[in-house]
């Protein structure tokens, strides 16, 4: 147990503090509310910016339109229901996408 361990522990704690609502799902409990980054990583980001769907980060798309398209689907994109992405999660997600910077490594088709 030296400086390295203490430093590593401190860094891990800082990382946890910096990421809001990153609670993991617990046995016997429903999935807790997810932060926009999590929803993007676990749903949107499988297609958008990764061979399948157009890039949506860094384009400052209007949040209202993002919410609409998520709920209705568009062309090949499925619709996502409030039971899958809650209204609160979607509001935060749409806001986050519309403000987000472009990510290097993402590409459209």
């Amino acid at each position: 147990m030296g400086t390295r361990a203490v430093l590593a522990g401190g860094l891990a704690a800082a990382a946890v503090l910096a990421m809001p609502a990153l609670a993991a799902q617990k046995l016997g409990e429903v999935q807790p509310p997810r932060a926009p980054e999590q929803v993007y990583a676990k749903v949107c980001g499988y297609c958008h910016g990764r061979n399948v769907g157009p890039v949506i980060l860094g384009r400052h798309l209007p949040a209202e339109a993002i919410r609409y398209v998520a709920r209705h689907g568009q062309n090949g994109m499925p619709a996502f229901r409030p039971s899958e992405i809650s209204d609160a999660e979607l509001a935060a997600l749409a806001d986050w996408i519309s403000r987000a910077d472009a990510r290097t490594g993402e590409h459209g088709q």
Partner: protein
Amino acid sequence: MTTIDRRGLLGTGLAATAAMGLGTGASAKNPAPLAPGRSKADFAGAMKAFRSVVGAEWVFGDEEAVAPWTKTYIPDPSGHYKPVGAVCPENVEQVQEIVRIANTFKQPLWTVSTGKNMGYGMTAPATPGQVVLDLKRMNRILEVDADLGTCLLEPGVTYQQLKDYLEDNNIPLWIDVPTVGPIASPVGNTLDRGVGYTPYGEHFMFQCGMEVCLPDGRLMRTGMGSIKGSTAWQAFKWGYGPYVDGLFTQSNYGIVTKMGLWLMPRPPVYKPFMVRHPEMGDTPKIIEAMRPLRVSSLVANCNLMMSASYQLAMFKRRNEIVPDGAPLDEASLKKAAKANGLGMWNTYFALYGTEQTVAAIEPIIRAQLTASGGEVMTAAEMEGNPWFHHHQTLMQGGLNLDEIGLLRWRGSGGGLAWFAPVAAARGAEAERQTALAREILEKHGFDYTAAYAIGWRDLHHIIALLFDKSDPAQHAAADACYRELVTRFGAQGWASYRTGVNSMDLVAQQYGEVNRDFNRTLKHAIDPNGILAPGKSGIV
């Protein structure tokens, strides 16, 4: 051209799209019809009672609110497959209450788990007037036994949630995914008898124990689940007396609220392979070479034998290969396949085991497949190839949504219907199936974008009927084409193992009147009010 159009629409037209309600088919003048014999008062009464159970925020009745449950990819030129509402319970007790209310008001319920089966109908019901019973909020992982390799799940759990749980808790068990794993449900996929690509790919074979809400609202547990104190609910499939779990798959006899599944221990070595064959006519050689490897379990996972066109459709657009309106000729396909590191058939399998077992089996398999005219490739040669990467991910229960790319193959309208006839794993049969499918598809102006899933002894011919749903002529042609596929394949003895809501009755007819009558007799006995998913698998 299409690429630019889509990008333009996204960049400048999103707000306009939202304002105009494009793509929903929504129209205040054409509300979805109620169930036969039901009045507006019956429907309103049921919806009011549902609200008292789950809260007003989880009952959806007006047209705009129901829109997220109406998005489909299947051909539906007459707009027949639309629900009238949705209700989203958060626990089993609420499901029981909803079922009792549905009996009182004779309001049919169409149950979905996560509603992401893509070309089979998503959350759309098979007959008009149904309220979607959406179980996505019930997404508890109830048990995971790391020693036995078992889990007990609610229907709303996605493959992503299960994988995250296993990884977060360092449990060395794999999941087995269908192609849209992140957003699909292990319970829902197993109930539709879907398949995946590890040795646990025949999903229903690895199911163990269910809890079912019966049409009268009572809860029944199958297998060992009804024995007080039993520790074997997820360990022993058969229980005592008639084995009934199968009755709750592809059916409307109950609502599965919990399901046990077996999970494969992560093997010390996983080695994925791809075998490239150069000609479309190589179909029988591949299947004849692969069958003994599958029957003996030397190759233990469900193989995907992918046509070049299916592979290209995932990440390319049709007009990158041939001009719009031109047929997808074999020479152009071959050229595009070669340029992308693909053969005309690309067969993916993997070896699972220890260094010693994999090293012992690999030469036997290589010899057999090389003799069939295939080039046997591994990660060493295919590094960076997106198609190899896709299958390398799937065959270890990894997650991606690459197959959603199929929806952009042809225009941007998002049309897809899966046609999945079954045959025994014999090369000559596959050759005849491919010829028949190409003839029918080409007659209606569509492409043969297809794969064979080589099971233990069977072939699932997975044909993706891809069309532009925003083009009315293509939409109508796709509807006619799908019916012709079902009818003419059926006449040859090749019926579907699973089908979309647009063709459930048609396929049920092919399985014969005695079978239909047996299903109907059961239905009437246990669900006399007909409230659970009328029309599912053609059972009304």
